[in-house]
């Protein structure tokens, strides 16, 4: 069960959903659940910049993926997170879980994104006009992560 292939990537380039989909569909699972986070433009954000802790980030994402593989019977797990400057509409994060049955895929997908929000060393800075602001963590993220404990 722990042999499920895990793919973790932290990258400056855009997330290639077609390529990620091909990889996760190649596992012969019957059910694939995915989550994609996009930069929202709705509150005047012109640029979002993501800083991270190289090395520690990849280890944290791998730990999140391994947590999912330990809890559910999964065929594959993917976590791809972008860093650097991004524009509204661009993909920040893509997670996917493949399984024989849809329950495991759907739950694991929710677990991956919930844990990632609190467990991985990323920091967001939003630029609106001339003002750059570091994004504060949200209590709801910690509540969402805690429900898996």
């Amino acid at each position, binding site marked *: 069960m722990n042999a499920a292939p895990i793919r973790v990537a932290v990258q400056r380039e855009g997330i290639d959903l077609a390529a990620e989909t091909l990889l996760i569909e190649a596992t012969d699972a019957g059910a694939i659940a995915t989550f994609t986070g996009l930069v929202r433009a709705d509150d005047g954000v012109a640029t979002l910049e993501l800083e991270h802790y190289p090395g520690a980030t990849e280890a944290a994402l791998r730990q999140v993926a391994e947590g999912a593989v330990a809890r559910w019977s999964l065929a594959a797990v993917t976590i791809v997170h972008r860093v650097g400057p991004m524009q509204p509409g661009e993909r920040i994060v893509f997670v996917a879980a493949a399984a024989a049955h849809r329950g495991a895929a759907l739950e694991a997908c929710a677990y991956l994104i919930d844990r990632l929000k609190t467990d991985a060393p*990323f920091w967001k800075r939003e630029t609106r006009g001339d003002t750059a602001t570091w994004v504060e963590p949200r209590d709801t993220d910690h509540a969402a992560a805690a429900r898996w404990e």
Partner: protein
Amino acid sequence: MLYFAWVRERMGRAEEVIDPPATVATVGALVDWLAARHGDDAAALADRGRLRAAVDQQFVGLEASIAGAREIALFPPVTGG
């Protein structure tokens, strides 16, 4: 030492090599020692409630030991995804 996000900005640097005395045993004591070196650093590190740390890339609390640590990082609460 590594600094990230607004800790990095306020410290004015992303990394530095330090050599604290052996009496500095925990992350919290290290933050006190860093802050005592310079008024600007004291201001940068004043908001202890919003400081998080990692010792050799493991997330820890301010009470954690730094004995034998090779890489210590200070940063704000994370906001990824």
